[in-house]
């Protein structure tokens, strides 16, 4: 068995250290070692987007990142986006707009949508659909998700 290595990364703004095996994915370490279970394991092969987190500001599927690659990186997970116990506007719009049913895909959608709004504060519907194409939802049919992102961007009711 390859030896565990000690990794330092900033996770949701806080410096964290963890030990991991080379073969462990960032998703495994987030969920099993750091108890950040917001990111979900859907397909574990990069198709579904349920494990999306931001790595140095870029959305990535954490199932296709080795935990070792996080050395020195900044990682944001869904646990980090609600500041001071207050839901982020994006989360509030998902909630009020019923943009989820089972909720497994939701943390991934929130992280990709956050990355989008960080870069493009007022995206078109086409842009939202294109940029969220890497997140799959088997319940909602996407319309409510797209409307929730639009509402969060425009500060309106979903």
């Amino acid at each position, binding site marked *: 068995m390859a030896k565990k290595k000690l990794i330092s990364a900033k996770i949701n703004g806080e410096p964290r250290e963890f030990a991991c095996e080379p073969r462990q994915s960032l998703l495994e370490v987030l969920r099993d070692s750091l108890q950040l279970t917001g990111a979900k394991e859907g397909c574990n092969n990069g198709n579904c987007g349920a494990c999306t987190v931001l790595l140095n500001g870029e959305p990535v599927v954490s199932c*296709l990142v*080795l935990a070792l690659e996080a050395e020195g990186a900044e990682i944001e997970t869904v646990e980090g986006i609600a500041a001071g116990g207050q839901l982020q506007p994006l989360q509030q719009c998902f909630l009020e707009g019923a943009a989820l049913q089972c909720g497994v895909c939701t943390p991934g959608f929130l992280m990709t949508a956050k990355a989008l709004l960080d870069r493009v504060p007022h995206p078109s519907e086409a842009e939202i659909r294109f940029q969220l194409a890497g997140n799959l939802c088997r319940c909602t049919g996407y319309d409510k998700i797209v409307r929730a992102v639009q509402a969060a961007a425009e500060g309106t009711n979903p």
Partner: protein
Amino acid sequence: MQDFDYAAPISTHEAVQLLADPGHKAVVLAGGTDILVLLRERRRRATLVVDVKKIAELNELAMTADGGLFLGAAVPCSRIYREAAITEKYAALVDATKIIGGWQIQSRATVGGNLCNASPAADSIPPLAIYDAVAEIAGPNGRRQMPVADFCSGVGKNVMARGDLLVAIILPPIEARSGAAFQRFIPRNEMDIAVASAASLVELDDQGIICKARIVLGAVATTAVRASHAEEALVGQPPSDELFAQAGALAERSARPIDDMRGTIEYRKHLCGVLTRRTLAIAVERAQSKTQ
């Protein structure tokens, strides 16, 4: 996942030594969007994963002194399409990098990895081929360059030997009065593997006549295939829809596709015609917009 060791060398020399070491079964990790899936599903075996993202030259993305492009092998797709200068000069490559997987994949997946994996359906290979891109390879016996068009030798196979590392892809400068485009057909809107694809490049002379054409088809042979007869039919002609349709019909004949779950031979050939026609129209439009 299977057990392996991990190394993240900071120089190409060190990476080549690790890859060449007979004591390991080493694989290269760049974006990880293919190799980590293959390792997890045990379709590939490795005792050492060599992460090449800490090597400076593999991360370099810059215009060269002569106006070409140096594209480090570990540069992810999203860095490429965010560069306005690359969109302006190498639009077909940008067309491809924008539709490889979704955003999360584009944050990590590299054009270098797309080339090395040598999938017949690789989206970035037809655009690289129309630009006459060159692959720079470092190996135990030094460096060499070869045309990207000769890099893939079969389905999932390339010319690299043990210890070889793809350092960069170098795109030569392009003529001012030229334009290019890439399109693929998939049954979904996004996030799928090409049933067929086409990249076209045209260069116009002072009178607006086509003086050079390049058409490369993807997913219709074991490697990307050049539609030479279609190219020849375009040279010396003024661009028109009829001419593009004629080129499309000729391109269909260059395709040597197979029947599989993504499409039949007949369907793929038909798609080659359609995609050739459409990419030529966009390529000409882009060339004309630059010259007006």
